[in-house]
């Protein structure tokens, strides 16, 4: 009952951690040997640039990239901290609090595309990257990725890291058990569209009764939404005037209805994404197929574990190209060393940084230069039966248009998907789900 006491302690720890972070961020002038060499534009005083990111497994995949930079730049040392694996409900609220408080953020912060609308509307918190010459990088990025880094004042404040793209991850061994083809080319041909996909699912579950076809509602929903949004004016929950269109955008209705039909057909394992049960289900083979942006490949590898090596593979997605997720790096205005931070940001979002991240975390580069590099284009993934991930995700990201994500996209997305989870698990009747879905989204936007 004395929960209050416990919370008090937690709060105290939180405060301590926050202030410790503030201290590390401020007190970054570490005395270090100022021997010559290294970075050409290195300042006289050595500085530490803190990079804060989020994400599960290998998250942004910056381990090697940072090691390499630090070896070459004794005067600008990078300290990479991955704060949490959850973005919308942990990383984002903490980042906003630190921005508001004026201290505690990293010199460089990672931002998921879902919160870019929110950050674009708050230009006062971020450094204009144009003043450090980073606006010259426009040609490196697809228009979609570049435009999203420009805030409401028209200033460049963030550069792209990875891009999601879209494919389907599937259990090769279970497919073969069900008498379906296991080869990724043939699997891709099994499902040109979502109707065909459903037929495959029914066939699969007949043959392998212990395993569901899909994991749950979230991945399927986001996969379809990522394909439908570009067909419906490149918007999702909000139109370009930041008005909520959750009830009007056909893309959302299509994605919702498709998820509903799969759920009603009993083709899902009723697992909500990024929960312990979902992780366990991935490991224990509770389902056979999952919508798979590039970064999800790393998540599956982490969750399914070594014993499932070779069981998974990657095939084309029904219904064509789309993009789910992908991130950006920005420099908060509170950074004491914006110039040096800009150099690091330039490196991490440059060709070498992108390639290193792809190798480490399968974070598919948004940088066009990096995409064309053989290290990316020809990369295969040994965990996924040597699937040519470079080719698959490269093809899925070609010609993508920017999807506008409103200022409150993250909140609405979380609330709406919660209803999908409830519908799938049976706590919301199918007949009421659409109304509840709109209601939850509208409330989160209000």
């Amino acid at each position, binding site marked *: 009952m*004395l*929960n209050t006491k416990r919370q008090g302690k937690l709060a105290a720890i939180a405060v301590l951690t926050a202030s410790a972070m503030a201290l590390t961020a401020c007190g970054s002038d570490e005395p270090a040997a100022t021997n010559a060499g290294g970075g050409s534009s290195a300042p006289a005083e050595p500085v530490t640039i803190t990079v804060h990111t989020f994400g599960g497994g290998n998250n942004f995949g910056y381990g090697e990239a940072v090691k390499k930079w630090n070896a070459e730049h004794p005067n600008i040392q990078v300290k990479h901290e991955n704060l949490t694996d959850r973005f919308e409900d942990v990383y984002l609220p903490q980042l906003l*609090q630190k921005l508001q408080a004026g201290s505690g953020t990293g010199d460089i912060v990672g931002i998921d595309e879902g919160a870019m609308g929110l950050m674009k509307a*708050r230009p006062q918190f971020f450094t204009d990257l144009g003043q450090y010459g980073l606006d010259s990088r426009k040609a490196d990025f697809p228009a979609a990725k570049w435009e999203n880094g420009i805030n409401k004042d028209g200033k460049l404040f963030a550069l792209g890291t990875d891009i999601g793209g879209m494919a389907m991850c599937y259990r090769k061994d279970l497919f073969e058990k069900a008498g379906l083809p296991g080869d990724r080319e043939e699997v891709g041909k099994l499902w040109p569209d979502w109707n065909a996909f459903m037929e495959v699912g029914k066939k699969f579950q007949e043959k392998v009764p212990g395993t569901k076809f899909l994991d749950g509602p979230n991945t399927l929903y986001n996969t379809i939404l990522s394909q439908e949004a570009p067909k419906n004016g490149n918007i999702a929950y909000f139109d370009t005037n930041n008005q909520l269109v959750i009830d009007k955008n056909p893309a959302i209705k299509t994605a919702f209805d498709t998820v509903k039909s799969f759920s009603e057909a009993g083709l899902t394992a009723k697992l909500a994404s990024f929960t*312990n049960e979902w992780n*366990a289900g991935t490991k224990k083979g509770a389902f056979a197929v999952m919508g798979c942006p590039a970064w999800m490949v790393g998540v599956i590898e982490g969750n399914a574990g070594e014993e499932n090596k070779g069981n998974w593979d990657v095939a084309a997605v029904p219904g064509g190209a789309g993009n789910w997720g992908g991130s950006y790096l920005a420099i908060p205005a509170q950074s004491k060393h914006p110039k040096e931070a800009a150099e690091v940001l330039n490196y991490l979002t440059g060709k070498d940084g992108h390639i290193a991240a792809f190798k480490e975390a399968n974070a598919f580069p948004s940088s066009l230069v990096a995409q064309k590099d053989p290290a990316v284009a020809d990369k295969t993934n040994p965990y996924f039966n040597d699937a040519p991930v470079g080719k698959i995700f490269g093809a899925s990201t070609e010609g993508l248009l920017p999807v506008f994500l409103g200022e409150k996209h993250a909140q609405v997305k979380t609330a709406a998907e919660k209803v999908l989870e409830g519908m799938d698990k049976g706590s919301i009747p199918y007949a009421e789900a659409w109304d509840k879905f709109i209601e939850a989204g509208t409330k*989160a936007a209000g």
Partner: protein
Amino acid sequence: MTLNVDAPAPARKTGPRRSSGNRGAKRGGNGLARFDLRATPYFLVSPYFLLFTLFGLFPLGYTLWVSLHDWELAGDKTFLGLDNYTELIADEAFWNAVVNTVGIFVIATIPQLVMALLLANALNKRIRGRLFFRLGILLPLVTSVVAVAVVFTQLYGRDYGMVNWVLSLFGVEAIEWQNQSWSAWIAIATMIDWRWTGYNAIILLAAMQTIPKDLYEAASLDGASPRRQFWQITVPMLRPTLIFVVFVSTIGGLTLFAEPVMFEGNPTMAGGATGQYQTVAMFIVKEGFRDFDMGYASAAAWMLFALILIGILINYSFTRRIGGNK
């Protein structure tokens, strides 16, 4: 120092004037000592009040101020007056959270206090290995709330949980414990009871041991059964302690947070797809730090404060009647 201050205190009851006169005579003449005597106690208790002002009163007032605004986290702030409160009173989601909180409180606390009372009574008897049992019931308290919740949540897992496995032996189909209010409330209530029953039992046991033995001896001479002794002597004598235990349980129950959050398995603070087990504390965090609406969250926090006061008043009026003497 403290001894000097405390020592005359009992004497005061019989004759305050004379007692303080004596002390004055002894100490008179030394101004510094008198100042020391008068001021030091205040000085010594002041850290608490300073900290309370800083971390208790100020946030309380500031929250009130924020609650009068449309206050977005790291965003715009506009004065609204009482709009947040009127919106909150009409908000179904808020009342849903209130119902959940009170529901979980009732099904967790009432059995818990009854169990604690019976446990304390049993441990107050001469039984073999008394110390072992007394320590044993207190053991759950040393585990962290979060750890308890994590373990219980796994026990209540749909696919791989032990509770469903045991139920399946009796032919019960796998229950998704998070899905309905009743099942989620029960699951959360068991977490609370597992951790806090022993704690309350120990407090009640300590109070029981202060009840004079001769009361029981006299009662048994008069032929009162042990059951009658329990209801007619033990329970009425425990009343002040029971009131304390009920107060603390009420505050803890109405600010319930960690268990349902861990039970959900992700920190969205939604308490299930339709908020089946979202407590008021979760509602506040969700509004403030998931939807970034600090003003609305602050208003909800003040409503919770009011609810706790009401809850305590209701419980006080109940517990006062225990024993039926007054």
